């Protein structure tokens, strides 16, 4: 009998045909993050098993490394029994019950149908054993202080501690998206949510010195550091945007400024997405939050990109977004008061209901723009995150 981690992966289990692809992806992500040749991750009939080949696993240390991996629904700190004989299960169950507990319940899952007893019978037999061994504990099937879980698979597992995790799908298993990261509260949350749905994230940031300060750029790098805890190391692409921004500012109609700037970002992002073989763009737009995030404005901006634009925050309230930002640790960084590129070139009276076709045709008149877009996309500067300095 030894201590292991049993990984539950929720949604992947629903997949039929390609389930094993997801399982393998998740196992390799776990293995990479643990980065220890003594620890092996293997598939175990609807679970993943993480064990130390030399004995008990250091549960706290390993959990800290893997608990943010998308696709893991829960981690069970479990005993693994090579011999699933009832007497062994009984002893292990008793061991997991600390003396302070006064009510309990046994729950058994039997995937190995060759096992001679049925789940209910196993639970009853173990419960009875515990009642005989301990005088100060009773069974409570409705509201127990603790549930002892028994799982009969290739091996048998006994545990009480379940650590809830991120759920979602393994990172990189559902495609690649270019994330437009601004430094505000929303876009890091958008990136996090899409990454949790298994999408590989390529973050880009539009930098406009001197209108945006070097500190604003550092802030985005700090935000990336938070995201990296979920997605692993990743480069941030910094796009030099000043020239494009000034051109638009000086040559194009001011109440549509925000739309033109957003379209410019989409044009540039699309060129980069093409190069990176990404499948879509991701933004932090939330419907109705500001003038450029009405359905009309979104329609007026979207035609600038050939890629699908995913907006995971579209239907979320600001407070919901803030709560998620706090939970993933980006909120405190996002509220630092450095200008980001959206806040300076804001028209006094932005249009709320722009005509999509009119915006696109106004833009098309500026034949100098495409050159500026490709120049900006060519001059991107990759910054490795988390940064080493």
């Amino acid at each position, binding site marked *: 009998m030894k201590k292991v981690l049993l990984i539950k992966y929720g949604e992947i289990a629903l997949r039929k045909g390609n389930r094993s692809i997801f399982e393998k992806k998740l196992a390799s992500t776990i293995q990479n993050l643990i980065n220890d040749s003594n620890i092996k991750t293997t598939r175990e009939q609807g679970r993943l098993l993480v064990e130390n080949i030399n004995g008990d696993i250091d549960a706290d240390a390993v959990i800290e490394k893997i608990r943010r991996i998308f696709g893991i629904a829960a981690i069970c700190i479990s005993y693994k029994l090579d011999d699933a004989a009832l007497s062994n299960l009984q002893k292990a169950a008793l061991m997991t019950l600390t003396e302070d507990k006064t009510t309990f319940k046994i729950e058994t899952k039997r995937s190995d149908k060759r096992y001679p007893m049925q789940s209910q019978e196993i639970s009853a037999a173990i419960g009875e054993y515990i009642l005989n061994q301990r005088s100060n504990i009773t069974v409570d099937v409705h509201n127990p202080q603790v549930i002892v879980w028994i799982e009969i698979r290739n091996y048998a597992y006994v545990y009480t501690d379940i650590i809830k995790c991120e759920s979602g799908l393994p990172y990189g298993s559902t495609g690649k998206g270019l994330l437009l990261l601004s430094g505000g509260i929303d876009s890091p949350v958008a990136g996090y949510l899409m990454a949790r749905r298994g999408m590989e994230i390529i973050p880009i940031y539009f930098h406009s*010195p*001197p*209108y*945006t*300060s*070097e500190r604003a750029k550092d802030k985005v790098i700090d935000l990336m550091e938070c995201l990296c805890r979920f997605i692993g190391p990743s480069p941030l692409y910094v796009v030099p945007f000043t020239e494009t921004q*000034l051109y638009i*500012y*000086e040559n194009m109609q*001011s109440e549509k400024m925000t739309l033109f700037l957003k379209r410019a970002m989409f044009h540039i992002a699309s060129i980069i997405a093409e190069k990176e073989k990404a499948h879509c763009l991701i933004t932090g737009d939330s419907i109705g939050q500001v003038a450029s995030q009405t359905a009309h404005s979104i329609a007026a901006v979207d035609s600038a990109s050939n890629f699908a634009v995913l907006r995971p925050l579209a239907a979320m309230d600001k407070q919901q977004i803030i709560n998620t930002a706090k939970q993933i640790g980006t909120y405190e960084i996002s509220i*630092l*008061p450095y*200008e980001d590129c959206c806040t*300076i070139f804001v028209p*006094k009276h932005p249009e709320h209901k722009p005509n999509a076709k009119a915006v696109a045709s106004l833009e098309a008149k500026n034949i100098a723009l495409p050159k500026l877009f490709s120049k900006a996309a060519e001059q991107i500067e990759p910054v490795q995150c988390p940064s080493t300095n």
Partner: protein
Amino acid sequence: MIYFDNAATTLLCASAKEILQQDFGNPSSPHAYGLKAERAIKKAIKEISTPLLCDPKEIIFTSGGTESNNLGILGAAFSLKSASNKSLKFHILATNQEHPSVIEPLEYLSTLPGYSVTYAAPSEWEAHICEQTAMICMTQISSDTGDIFDIKELAEKFPKAIIFVDGSQGFCKIKPPSYADIYTFSGHKVHGSMGIGGLVVKKGLRLVPIMHGGGQQRQIRPGTENVPGILAMSAAVLEQYDSQHQNYELVKNIKGILSTLANEISDTYINQTTEVTSPYILNISFIGIKGETLVNMLSQREIYVSMGMACRTAKKESPLTSMGFSKERAESAIRLSFSCMNTEKEALEAKEVIKECVTQLRKTAKGR
């Protein structure tokens, strides 16, 4: 580079740099190596007491301006209460241009029973001062505008009130006011190192310590003295004290050159609320552009200035609007602050670059 952000911090002077590379014993150690450090501190205290116009025994060293202000204000306020009838009420009057390290301890005091605080421009103080006014807090030179405050007459009228003066921007530049009961100073504003500062507490005034530990510095500020910091600050101070008048004239000329921007560029205004201001600080607004953008642009050209006091950059509200300046003027303000290490040539060069940048930025900001 042209460094015009000396109100935030100054560059180390050569003699301070040299001292900071040396090793020192613990001045409280019993052996000769410790004694050597103790003697060095004693000598430094004597040296620094001359420009501070005080008795060496009145000096207490701290970790810097913020700690000095906290210890001075809280220590004096607590001692008022412990020395008298506990139910007495104490009123504290402060200028409306104080540094956060003065405002925050005052705000903390006002949450305690028995203390109340009023902030106002000194010109309005007559209306607020009363029998219960037990302490008056005044920054000697405003770190935002360079305004110089002087309350000599008022101080004479109210001899009972403790006069607290934040000298962070004034020390080594102008004389400490003779009426100050507590005067605070900071090492890195006078070409010493960061992490060292101190305060003068006039004889007869007791401070309740806010830190507790070993018996150093008469138990008012325990903790092993920052020997290299103290010696480096003392060396820097001596150097400047000797050339105080020369420096003043040099810096006055630099400020004069840059002040002409207000005449040479339209819609440009110097921000000050007192008639006399320090030549070490120039706060100037270029209406129509954002101060932050200009600061970034100058930074790209290796000219380092700021929007205002560094300690407040994390907070949103502008000190200039609270002084009564318009939002437009507050948003477009930058602060240039000088030191004896600056030159006339730098001033002339910076002036031209600022002109260029302002013109360029105004072109983009047109109609905004």
